[in-house]
């Protein structure tokens, strides 16, 4: 149960290649934070720096307030699940999970059992008796008194035990196995198990230890799609059961969205944005986050934003689409004037309207991907710009379904609430807060922007 603070953490490899730039994050106790980003963005490196498997070039990493930069992984009270499970091939599942417990040599306090308490009392009586008849020499009496004091103190404190007893280990491992549903595999070797089962053993091994921080390095990426969905649900349940701080690394944005309390979206060693899933989905700081979160990718158009009095319009496909509602007020509040923008809208926020009207755009369907519960339509407008639309099939009549074929023309309406406006040069969301990071060209951190 620990708070993890990363202050100005940098990772510079030999030949001054910087893998992680000025990483600052404060993970609260019991929070589930997900590092997400394309491969090579430094997410795994950061996780490994927290774990202690990589040296921290600059900056400090604190767990529960204690600087751990120089601590070895085993002294940081963390446990980790690896991408390729890293199970010990020569040990059975039980031994794999018991391995960390057998190595743990910390002293723990255990309550005395009944007979033990009785034995201590007898011992104390014996000493008192000796103390009584050793009236003559004081030194011996003083010694006896000290001994009696000690026994009394240890009686209250409880038994000091080094590491885990055998049955403690058995109990912890079997509990974990029960939680993960791998009880009847305990005597098998990892070689004889499927990917999913091996992943569960890996989680089990990390779970049995009581640890401050639970690290997971793309645990699901080696599993097939169906198993991945199932494991995602199990990890959510697991999180509630273990109830400790989680740091989870993945390149799959769906995992990030479903699992994370907060998501840290990263690219080329920089943090693009930190926020809750909804913040990242609805209010992306920049175009990169917008396009990275959500599948299929957000559509973007190079257009102009027109300010007419206190109304805003978007000049799209030589039509003027009005912007109303919350977005318009926000623009007004920010005092945005007419300017060039990058308009972003997610495929699922485009609505197919039955009738053509001022606010809709006629598009012809090029490809219709049938995904079962929804259609992914690849359409193109009159001037050829490609747009992707996602339409749930449930509320379409049979006739409409038949018409969804290549060449058919449909009318698209833009949901004003779902529009995003990005500055073409810096790709920063116009409505984003001051600490938004640009995602185009050399990345300038908020702090540095003032000097630039």
């Amino acid at each position: 149960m620990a708070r993890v603070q990363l202050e100005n953490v940098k990772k510079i490899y030999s030949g001054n290649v910087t893998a992680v730039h000025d990483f600052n994050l404060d993970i609260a106790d019991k929070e589930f934070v997900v590092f997400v980003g394309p491969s090579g963005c430094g997410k795994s490196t950061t996780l490994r720096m927290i774990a202690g498997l990589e040296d921290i070039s600059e900056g400090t990493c604190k767990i529960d307030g204690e600087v751990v930069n120089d601590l070895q992984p085993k002294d940081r009270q963390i446990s980790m699940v690896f991408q390729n499970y890293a199970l010990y091939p020569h040990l059975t599942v039980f031994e794999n999970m018991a391995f960390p417990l057998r190595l743990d040599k910390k002293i723990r306090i255990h309550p005395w059992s009944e007979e033990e308490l009785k034995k201590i009392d007898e011992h104390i009586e014996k000493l008192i008796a000796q103390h009584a008849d050793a009236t003559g020499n004081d030194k011996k009496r003083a010694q006896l008194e000290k001994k009696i004091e000690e026994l009394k103190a240890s009686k209250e404190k409880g038994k000091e035990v080094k590491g885990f007893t055998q049955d403690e280990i058995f109990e912890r491992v079997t509990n974990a196995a029960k939680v993960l549903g791998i009880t009847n595999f305990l005597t098998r070797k990892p070689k004889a198990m499927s990917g999913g089962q091996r992943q569960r053993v890996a989680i089990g091994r990390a779970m049995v230890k009581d640890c401050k921080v639970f690290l997971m390095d793309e645990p699901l990426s080696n599993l097939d799609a169906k198993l991945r969905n199932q494991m995602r649900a199990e990890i959510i349940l697991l999180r509630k059961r273990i109830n400790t701080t989680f740091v989870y690394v993945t390149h799959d944005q769906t995992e990030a969205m479903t699992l994370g309390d907060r998501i840290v979206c990263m690219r080329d060693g920089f943090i693009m944005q930190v926020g809750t899933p909804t913040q990242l989905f609805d209010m992306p700081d920049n175009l990169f986050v917008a396009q990275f979160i959500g599948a299929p990718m957000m559509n973007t158009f190079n257009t102009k934003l027109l300010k007419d009095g206190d109304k805003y319009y978007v000049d799209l496909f030589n039509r003027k689409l009005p912007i109303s509602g919350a977005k318009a007020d926000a623009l007004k509040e920010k005092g945005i004037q007419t300017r060039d923008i990058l308009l972003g809208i997610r495929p699922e926020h485009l609505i197919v309207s039955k009738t053509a009207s001022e606010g809709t755009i006629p598009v012809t369907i090029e490809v219709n991907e049938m995904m079962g519960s929804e259609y992914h339509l690849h359409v193109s407008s009159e001037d050829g710009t490609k747009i992707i639309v996602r339409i749930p099939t449930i509320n379409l009549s049979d006739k409409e379904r038949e018409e969804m074929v290549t060449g058919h023309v449909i009318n698209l309406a833009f949901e004003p609430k779902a529009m995003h406006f990005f500055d073409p040069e810096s790709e920063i969301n116009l409505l984003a807060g001051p600490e938004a990071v640009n995602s185009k060209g050399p990345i300038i951190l908020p702090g540095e922007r003032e000097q630039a």
Partner: protein
Amino acid sequence: MEKRSMGMAAKRRVANITTYVILVLISIIWIIPFIFLLLNAFDVGNPGLTGNVWPEKWGLGNFAYLFSAESNFLRWYFNTFIIALFACVGQTAMQFMMAYALSRFRFKLRKPMMNMMLVLGMFPGFLTMIVLYEVLSGLGMTGDSAVPGLILVNIASSGMGYYVAKGFLDTMPKSLDEAAEVDGATKFQVFYKVIMPLCKPIVIYTVLTSFMGPWGDFVFAAAIAKGAQGGMNVATGLNSWLDSSNIAGFYKYFCAGGVIVAIPVIILFLFLQKYYVEGVTGGAVKG
């Protein structure tokens, strides 16, 4: 259509037959020297180098002589066995320590050290023989007590033969070490509890090759023992039977000695051949 398919099967059968013929030929060529050795070992007709293949008179006389009180063969054989035993344990340990350090860790002097050992290995061995003799005689390990000396020299610089072991260790995924470290194991426990158990094939390969070494060493052993019967190994002893004044009377004993030296090494080799193949190739045993 039918002819071509038959052609395919026929062609494969012909190929197999030719392969079998070649293999039989190869086997004969490779086994002849050992057969001749065996035949000569059983020839009690004439103890000298008569150059005949088939024994004049079959008998176990030659073997009897070896185990009789007259010859020191048992003493030499025992010496070599002790040297081979200590050598295979010592060399395996040394090679493994070196290979594990160079394979699993990255430290400043790693590359220069490996290049240095590669280069040092190329110096022709004989010149260092007289120096090693002086070093060993300083330690009192020459002449009759040459056996501990040979063991020491055998083990001391065996760390340089770490290539094969390192090749095998390089195939071990790094995440195993990291998982164990995260679980709280010290680097020694990672070595002892996680990686070593997985190295069974390469350990057996190294034990095997280092056990076979001392049996064939006749130049160095002779230089250290300097003729003292107590310190000679079997190769030196058997070779002393071949010089001009002895050969007429001892050649067949040499053959019998050769058979007794070869048999255990062959049996050991056949028993562990599976590991030999696995060890050399970097191990098919993956995690």
